[in-house]
């Protein structure tokens, strides 16, 4: 296999891969930031006592979790123009990643808050802390610690999911492989190189996850 593998072509296309790597990072980074915001909001609404707020949030979360990202992406890509909303591919891509990942983020955040032992909040109440003080000093620090590893896991998912954006012709790592395949008929060189770059991101995020689990271990044993 290696004797037929054309490293020269890869070298030639390396600048393309470089810019596509940056594009993948930027697209998934934007999706991550957006989904954190959406996730927080959806979680707040979801746990609200008012059904008028909690029901739509629940419907959003459940319908996202029950359908594939690709169908959601096409829904926005073909749907928004048909509604007369002019959008660029980049906007659609980031929007799809944000809305998709936001539903999962909402569940991660909810799990984090619920996993805090009721005794913690009772202890805080008995020492006279107000609601805001309890949130700031007791609930949030623990919730962030508990949710950090699954959020990093969600970041890994986002990076991989951003590959689907190549199907609406956005430039990113998978698209680079497609370009090498169509311009030079070298799918092996094209897609294996993409895969290597994805793996680099994956191992970086995985190392971070392991590190965060180790740093935050006290939260899980307490």
């Amino acid at each position, binding site marked *: 296999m290696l004797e037929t593998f054309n490293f020269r072509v890869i070298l030639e296309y390396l600048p393309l891969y470089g810019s596509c790597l940056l594009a993948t990072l930027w697209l998934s980074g934007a999706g991550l930031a957006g989904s954190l915001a959406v996730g927080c909001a959806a979680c707040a609404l979801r746990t609200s006592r008012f059904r008028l707020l909690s029901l739509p949030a629940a419907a959003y979360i459940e319908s996202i979790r029950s359908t594939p990202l690709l169908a959601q992406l096409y829904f926005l890509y*073909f749907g928004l123009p*048909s509604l007369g909303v002019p959008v660029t591919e980049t906007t659609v891509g980031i929007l799809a990643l944000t809305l998709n990942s936001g539903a999962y983020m909402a569940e991660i955040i909810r799990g984090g808050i619920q996993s805090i032992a009721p005794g913690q909040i009772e202890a805080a109440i008995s020492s006279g802390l107000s609601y805001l003080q309890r949130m700031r000093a007791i609930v949030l620090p623990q919730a962030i610690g508990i949710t950090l590893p699954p959020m990093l896991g969600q970041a890994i998912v986002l990076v991989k999911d951003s590959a689907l954006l190549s199907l609406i012709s956005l430039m990113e790592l998978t698209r680079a492989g497609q370009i090498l395949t169509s311009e030079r008929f070298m799918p092996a060189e094209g897609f294996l190189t993409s895969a290597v770059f994805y793996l680099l991101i994956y191992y970086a995020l995985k190392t971070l996850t392991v590190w965060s689990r180790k740093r935050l271990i006290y939260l899980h044993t307490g």
Partner: protein
Amino acid sequence: MWGVYLEQLLQSLPFFLKGLWMTIAVSGLSLVAGTAVGFLWGIVRSSRSGVPKALIGAWVDVIRGTPFLVQIFILFFILPEFGVHLEAFPAAVIALSNLAACFICEIVSAGIESVPHGQREAAVASGLNGYQQLRHVILPQALRVMLPPLVGQYVLLIKDSSVVSAIGVVDVTRVGWLTVQRIPQGILVFGLVGLLYFAICYPLIQLSNSLEKRLGRSSRR
């Protein structure tokens, strides 16, 4: 305007159901194959034996670390260079089974490791052999822990199967993509696609949740 499109869409409903059937066939076959292979790998992975365990671990990492779309492109476009010509359908099933096996392998090995060490010791002390320990003592207990994430994994599998539309398998997503070229109403067309996925996935997610609640509680008895 919408009325006309809606009628056109209803006329192509059989096409959508065919696509749905393809989605079910691809994910169903991969579910069976992926579960079988995943259990095998998971058992090896939770064992002490060195080389196979390390190989499986590395493979799982590679598959978990790369997008499924890239995996399926590699399988579909690169194998022909080595003289192996795969149709889109078998390529899709192989890629999806492998993906499922990698995730199920992790679920199985985590389930096995969740069984307290004393259980294996007790089984060893009463003279059960390795297979009997696994079959009668370890796996029944591990299964409790494994079942909810396993069902959750099947949901992911069905959703991931939408990606095989990219190599031309005419599943429900592909049907949507083809239809939207004819009926330019993305909301309507992919709303229907989403509805069909929802009809399968939502009950499974509820099943996973209720299993988690029931098994989670009873194992803490």
